[in-house]
Every structure is written in structure tokens, then in C-alpha cells.
């Protein structure tokens, strides 16, 4: 059953996965390209700055891949109003788990590409003294970020129009609250407060906000 679901997931997302895999392979190489000058001058501080400034692209790429794979996981079931999935002789939780697992499995392709890209990137440069390459740590962080983004978007995408409506209503209420607060001079932003909480190092999405360093001390 899982293989059948995996085959459908692959079919629905293979184009997007191919593009993501190419992008994931290219990212570490591009990060080294961005650090060309620092590498040429063998300047450790400059190199670390260049590598760090490139870090957000890994986070963005991981989030984007998670989002796209999650979206493709449910599109076909949504279009058939889930009748087919519900009429299959399998418990609902098991079907959802298999759908989740199939999407998560396909994330292996961009992850592998990023690992290979990182290995190729560090093999092609000579690091200044005191600096080390961390391709596997970067790959692990990328895997966690992709998986987290995928899990969140998978949960959102699995919902009905009603769920989407509730989420939009909550978002609308927050925006309304902030706009009203701005007008009457209250500088409270629950949205920013929430973002700060979930994105800081100990927050749920902390992995996106941490150091994405292919090269570090």
C-alpha cells in the first residue's frame, strides 16, 4: 500500500522535486561562489560572514520544498472530495500516515542533493586555518527544516475549506487588531510576538532561524 501511495506522490511531485533537487545541489556551490573573495584572500572572518549571509537561502529553500511537497500530497484527494481515499479499505489514520510518509520520503531527493552539493563545494576550496566544513550538520539541519515545514503545511493542506476559513479568520483578526492598535496608539503586536516566540532558538521553528553554516569554526 505504501509503495502505491509513494508512486502517486512521486508522479504528482516529480517535476517540482527535480527542480528542488537541482536547487538544493546548487545552493552549497553558490554559497562558495559568494565567498570567492574571502577564500582567495584566505580571510576567515570575511568567509564566515559570507557563508552566514547565505544561510537564509537554505532556510527558504527548505520551507519552499516542504510547502510544495505538502501541497501535492493532498491536491488529488481534495479534487475528488476524498471519496476515493475514504472508500479504500484502510483506517483513516493509516492512510494519512502513509500519505505523510510518502511525501517525507520524497524529501530524500533534495536532501541527498544538498549533501552531495555540500561535499562537492568543500572539496573544491581550501579553507583558511581554524575553519572547518560541516556538510553533514548542514544537511541534518536542512532535513529537519524541510520535514518541519512539510509537516506544518501537510497538516494545513489536509484540512477542509472550513479549516482554511478558520485560519484566514484568525489571521484577519490579528491584522485587524494590529491596525486598530496602530490607530489608537497601542504598540502591541501579537503577530510579531508569536513569530519571535516560534522562531527563536528554543521555539518550534527555531531550526529556520539558527546558523546555517557550511563552514564554521
Amino acid at each position, binding site marked *: 500500500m505504501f509503495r*502505491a501511495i509513494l*508512486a502517486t506522490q512521486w*508522479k504528482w511531485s516529480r517535476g517540482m522535486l527535480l527542480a528542488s533537487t537541482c536547487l538544493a545541489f546548487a545552493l552549497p556551490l553558490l554559497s562558495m561562489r559568494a565567498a570567492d573573495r574571502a577564500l582567495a584572500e584566505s580571510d576567515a572572518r570575511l568567509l564566515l560572514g559570507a557563508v552566514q549571509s547565505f544561510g537564509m537561502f537554505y532556510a527558504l529553500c527548505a520551507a519552499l520544498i516542504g510547502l510544495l511537497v505538502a501541497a501535492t500530497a493532498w491536491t488529488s484527494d481534495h*479534487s*475528488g472530495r476524498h471519496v476515493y481515499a475514504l*472508500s479504500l*479499505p484502510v483506517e483513516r489514520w493509516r492512510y494519512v500516515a502513509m500519505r505523510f510518509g510518502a511525501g517525507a520520503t520524497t524529501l530524500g531527493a533534495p536532501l541527498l542533493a544538498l549533501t552531495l552539493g555540500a561535499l562537492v563545494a568543500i572539496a573544491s576550496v581550501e579553507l583558511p586555518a581554524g575553519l572547518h566544513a560541516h556538510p553533514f550538520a548542514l544537511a541534518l539541519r536542512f532535513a529537519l527544516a524541510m520535514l518541519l515545514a512539510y509537516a506544518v503545511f501537510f497538516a494545513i493542506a489536509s484540512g477542509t475549506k472550513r479549516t482554511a476559513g478558520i485560519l484566514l479568520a484568525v489571521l484577519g483578526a490579528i491584522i485587524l487588531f494590529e491596525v486598530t492598535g496602530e490607530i489608537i496608539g497601542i504598540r502591541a503586536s501579537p503577530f510579531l510576538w508569536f513569530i519571535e516566540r516560534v522562531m527563536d532558538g528554543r521555539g518550534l521553528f527555531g531550526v529556520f532561524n539558527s546558523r546555517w553554516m557550511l563552514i564554521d569554526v
Partner: protein
Amino acid sequence: MTDAIQTRSLCYRASEHFEVTDLALTVPAGAVYGFLGPNGSGKTTTIRLLLGLLRPRSGEITVLGSPMPAATPSVLARVGYVPERPHIYPSLTVAEAMRFHAAFHRRWDSAWATALAATFQLRSDARVGSLSKGEMGKLMMLLALAQRPELLVLDEPTDGLDPVVRRDMLESVLGYVAEHGATVFISSHLVHELERICDWVGVMDRGRLVAELPMQTFKDGIKRLHVAGAAGDMANAPFVVLKRDRSDAAAEQWIVRGWEPGMQSYIEGAGATVREVVDLDLEDGFVEMLRAARTPTTTEV
């Protein structure tokens, strides 16, 4: 096990304006049960309740001897379902759709599926989304049959199909039933289609089961009577009066259900005379039954 499907006091509220009320269905094992009703009468909702796709508000459902929706996965493994609207993933090819379906059904018969695809002239490399309505219907029927079900649940399977495709599909169903003794639960609003193949009929209207009886009884028992004289109240008659119309000052036209030869004497005992008994075809009977069910004064249908 004598009944393939049984529901008791089944209730489901779909919206403020529509609910299935106090539904008591009995589908004998091995029967070809026609589930008749106009559009919007609750046939599809009932089928979804039977298959565990919807959760009832109250009541009991037993399918193939197991309680629903508690035993949904194990029951669905034994049920072939053709829904009202195409539900198969449109981006798959016919061959991929068959492989996907087969992965979930242990009793899948690959050889027969291939043979059915050839019979139905379905190209294995055709994309499901590009199939015509008739081809889509055939593919859904193929998937339902090749899993070798004990119960086939078909929700308006031939609606909108041309007569040739319709005949092909129904023949494949009847062939399967003849060979395996499976039960068929088929919903439709096309009365004549069910008349040819069903041995039981249940009639739904506005979320209620209006009648449930053997097809032959239904066909034989619906009559138009030309009655002379003024018969009194027929509430305790051995037949059911669906409709009484005064045709002229001295005569009435009645539509009755459950009529049997010899029942004229009951009417004569009530002071009237049966001048003529006319057979109604199934569609007329069906229409009159629905009209009677919708008339507030009718207490029993």
C-alpha cells in the same frame, strides 16, 4: 447471514434543510436491490452512511454482518463501490489506477481486470482525466468488480451514459452476480433500468424510505382501479390506496398498491363496484407512490 445490509432507525442530518430520517433498510444477501428515488432524495447520503464515509447521528448499520462505521476498513475490503461522481485520481493512467487500487485489495484479480479492460476497450496508457464519461464509468466498474467483492454498491452507475455503455456495464454486473452470488445495491432514478435487473426495490423520498418490497410484488401490485359508487374509508383495506380521484359524479379512479386478484370483494363490501383493473408500468407506479408519500393526508404508503 441472511441480510447483506441492514439499518435500523438510522438518522443523519446533512444540513438544515435535509436529513435522513428513521431509515430501516433490509437488503437480503444475494439480492439485486434497486434503490430508487428522485434526485436529492437521499440515496447518495444513505450509500455513504452504509459505507462508513459519513457518521450517522443515531441508529444502527450492519453491512455483511459487521457494524458500521466501526468495521469500515474490513467491510470496505469486501465491498466494490462505484460512486456517483468519478473519484479516481485524474493524473494517473488506467494501468496506474488499476495498480493503485490493487495494492489495497487482497482479492484483486489481475487477470480478470486485464480481461475487463479489454472488454471495456480501455487503453491502459490513457490518462484517467482524459477519459470520456462512458470510459470513466467503465473504469470505475472495472475497479469495483476486479476486487471480487461480496457486495457491489453502485451509486447511479449508468447516469448520463449512452445505451451501449449502460448495457455493457449492467451485463458485466449481472455476469459477476450470476457467477459469484454477490449482492448488488444499485441506486438510480431510472426506473426502467432497475426494473430489468432488480429483484428487490427500495424507494427513497426526502430522506425517508417510502417502500421496500420484492420487485415482482411492486410490479404486480400497483393498479389503477375504476370504481363506481361511493366507497367509504379504506384505511383498513388489505391494499394501500395511493390516490383517489373523482372522474365523474358516479365514479372514481384509484391508484392502489398491494393489489391482488379477489380484492374487489373488499371494495364491494364497502358499497362500491370495481369496473376495471388496469396494470400500471413501474414508472407510473413509482411516480404515484412518490406523490402519495408527499401528500400530507396519506398516512401509509
